[in-house]
């Protein structure tokens, strides 16, 4: 098989798996699991084969004309360069892990067949985005992901939170997609083609008439999809979905798509200094804000969700300083350790019977109950905190190194302000990231109190997946020496200055959170709180559904908890209250968009009910009244009728005579 054929099969197999799963799910339940797992495994293997054959050499391009449109044609195009093939490997591996994990996590779920099919469709759409060489075809995958995320986040639609979250995810991402679509049209109109290669050539030759406008329009879609400020609010709420879906959305698909698209179209962005500065500021605000919010969350999955937003902020920061190698490198390592963190969090929620960190801090012996999740998550959290020698350290150093490079004005065409912004925000976020990673670990695994309920050993499918993802989370950083061959860029190895600064910040964060935790332990022990759902024999998803549905009743809010023993409360001080609600952005959006929309809906309802329907009712009742008047003549007496008839004919006759004689 040629590389092209293999590459076509990679997105096609999960798509066929999804179609077959949706068609046969009800009638042949025995085929559901193989149909879910095998296409994902095959896609992952084929993606590895494609990556091997491409080998970081010259980009492979293949295209066939999909449809002539009369102006700019649409091509079914493949573009396989080092970025595409490696991102596809990540998507394939994570999707396989998620599918395997789901077989155990959602066992006995009556909706598992449609769930597995949608995960396959999601994977297929992301692979399409990764491989596509045509912006229109890319947009198809982009939108399919949007609708899949809507269905998957709303998988537990019995709970109010899940319904609201899926709707929010859909609306917010679509809100960004409209400018994105216009941006694609603007690019295509300037470049005369939807092919990414053509657009990049036009951008390099200065063929784009309005690079700033194009870049900002695209940025809106990217901010929605990749959950960047100010369109990030859907991501924490999307935690109401099943844990494997969170892992898939956060690690490999959906949020990675936005960063990947900017990486592909980077010359369009570097053509405009203003766009780069906007990107840098967006990344900085996202990073710092999300890290502060993560420090105040009580739901373990919401901590991870805000950490995803922050890590995506690092990637956009790397793109803002014009270094896509560092961005995609961080995308790869983050995909590995974030998938591991989410899948591990699913195990913790099952074992602890709650998603609340406050409740876990009052439960003892959790680490002994789930040793596999404990060890793998410890490493993944160290990688998240960028402690050497774990994978996150190397990729974050690559980002910070690129920012420092740009800040010193050594990168051509990149404004130094963008570099400084990203560097300062990156270092501050490194400190905060280490703090919330440490807080999560201390509260989840170092709790004291009554022992957690015994849920038995987790299934092999779950533990095996954790250990599979453990390998890249531990060692993917070594790729820093190998990746420049693939990406054709400069070296990604850590530089001394940023390494010392970054690691110093991270260690400072860890020390601070540890001190805060030691001080607040006494309070934690003194104030009992927390509600735990124990279902020793049920599938893991049952505990999760219950805990999502009850978090608001038990702790007063979907995000935070009134826990005086929380080390995050001690560290943040008066900021904690605002950080727990994500700095009140939801309230602002509610005032800006939700309430005006509701008011407009009420106005439309009033106009329809009271104004339009009045005319309709009038049109009906006027003939009714006339009819009632005429009905009075119906006396039932034949002679009256005949008399009226006679009188009428006489009148007519007289009239006829008068007209005939011309009187």
């Amino acid at each position, binding site marked *: 098989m040629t590389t092209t054929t293999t590459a076509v099969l990679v997105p096609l197999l999960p798509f066929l798996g999804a179609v077959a799963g949706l068609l046969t799910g009800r009638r042949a339940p025995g085929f559901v699991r193989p149909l879910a797992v095998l296409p994902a495994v095959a896609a992952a293997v084929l993606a590895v084969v494609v990556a091997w054959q491409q080998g970081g050499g010259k980009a492979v391009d293949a295209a066939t004309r999909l449809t002539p449109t009369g102006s700019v044609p649409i091509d079914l195009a493949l573009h396989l360069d080092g970025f595409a093939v490696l991102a596809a490997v990540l998507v394939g591996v994570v999707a396989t892990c998620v599918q395997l994990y789901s077989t155990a996590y959602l066992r006995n779920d009556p909706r598992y067949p449609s769930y597995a099919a949608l995960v396959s469709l999601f994977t297929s759409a992301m692979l399409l985005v990764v491989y596509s060489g045509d912006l229109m075809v890319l947009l198809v995958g982009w939108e399919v992901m949007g609708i899949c995320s809507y269905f998957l986040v709303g998988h537990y639609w019995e709970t109010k939170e899940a319904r609201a979250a899926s709707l929010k995810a859909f609306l917010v991402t679509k809100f960004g997609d409209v400018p994105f679509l216009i941006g694609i049209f603007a690019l295509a109109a300037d470049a005369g083609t939807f092919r990414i290669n053509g657009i990049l050539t036009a951008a390099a030759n200065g063929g784009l008439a309005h690079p700033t406008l194009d870049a900002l329009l695209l940025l809106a879609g990217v901010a929605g999809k990749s959950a960047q400020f100010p369109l990030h609010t859907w991501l924490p709420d999307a935690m109401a979905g099943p844990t494997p879906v969170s892992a898939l959305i956060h690690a490999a698909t959906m949020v990675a798509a936005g960063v990947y698209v900017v990486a592909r179209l980077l010359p369009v962005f570097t053509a405009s200094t203003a766009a780069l500065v906007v990107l840098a500021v967006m990344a900085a605000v996202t990073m710092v804000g999300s890290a502060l919010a993560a420090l105040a969350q009580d739901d373990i999955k919401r901590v991870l969700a805000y950490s995803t937003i922050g890590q995506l902020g690092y990637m956009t920061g790397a793109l803002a300083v014009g270094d896509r190698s560092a961005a995609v490198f961080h995308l790869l390592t983050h995909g590995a350790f974030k998938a591991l963190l989410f899948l591990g969090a699913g195990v913790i929620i099952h074992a602890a019977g709650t998603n609340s960190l406050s409740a876990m801090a009052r439960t003892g012996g959790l680490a002994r109950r789930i040793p596999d999740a404990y060890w793998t998550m410890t490493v993944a959290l160290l990688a998240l905190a960028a402690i050497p020698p774990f994978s996150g350290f190397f990729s974050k150093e690559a980002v910070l190194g690129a920012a420092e490079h740009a800040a010193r004005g050594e990168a051509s065409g990149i404004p130094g302000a963008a570099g400084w912004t990203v560097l300062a925000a990156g270092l501050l976020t490194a400190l905060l990231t280490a703090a919330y990673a440490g807080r999560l670990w201390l509260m989840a695994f170092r709790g004291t109190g009554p022992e957690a309920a015994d849920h038995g050993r987790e299934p092999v499918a779950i533990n095996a997946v954790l250990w599979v993802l453990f390998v890249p989370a531990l060692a993917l950083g070594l790729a820093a020496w190998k990746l420049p061959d693939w990406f054709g860029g400069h070296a990604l190895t850590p530089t001394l200055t940023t390494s010392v600064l970054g690691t110093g910040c991270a260690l400072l964060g860890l020390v601070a959170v540890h001190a805060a935790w030691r001080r607040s332990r006494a309070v934690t022990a003194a104030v009992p709180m927390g509600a735990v759902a124990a279902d020793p024999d049920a599938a893991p998803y049952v505990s999760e559904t219950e805990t999502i549905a009850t978090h608001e009743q038990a702790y007063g809010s979907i995000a935070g908890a009134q826990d005086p023993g929380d080390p995050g409360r001690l560290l943040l001080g008066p900021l904690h209250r605002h950080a727990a609600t994500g700095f009140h952005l939801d309230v602002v959006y509610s005032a800006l968009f939700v309430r005006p929309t509701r008011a407009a809906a009420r106005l439309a309802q009033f106009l329809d009910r009271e104004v339009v329907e009045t005319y309709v009712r009038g049109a*009906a009742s006027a003939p*009714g009244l006339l009819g*009632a008047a005429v*009905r*009075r003549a*119906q*006396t*039932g*007496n*034949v*002679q009256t009728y*005949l*008399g009226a008839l*006679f009188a009428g004919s006489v009148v007519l006759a007289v009239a006829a005579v008068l007209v005939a004689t011309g009187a």
Partner: protein
Amino acid sequence: MHLVYPAVLAALLFCVGLYGVLARRNAILVLMSVELMLNAVNLNLVAFDVWLRDTLHAGQALTLFVIAVAAAEIGIGLAIVLLVHRNRGTADIDRLRDLKETPDDRPERPEQDQQKAEAAA
């Protein structure tokens, strides 16, 4: 004979018949009045036929048709009156008011229909 005599006679006959149809209460007398009106028309037809010297005698032919139709009409009419009398014991036209519009069998308004449908559902 001048045309005015049969014409005036026919008009008088017709008026008598009209009065009977509109004013009499007994159904049989109403039917008889109808006959009077028809025959007034017949008289007109024959008179004008003669006065116009129609070679085809369309007036006389039409008279024959009217007589035949009148015979059929009176046959059916009397049969109906007979049955009505048997059923109700009267042939008084003023009392045969079953097709009268009464306030309570008016068609219902759409809202009431809707409410009924909701109640049924």
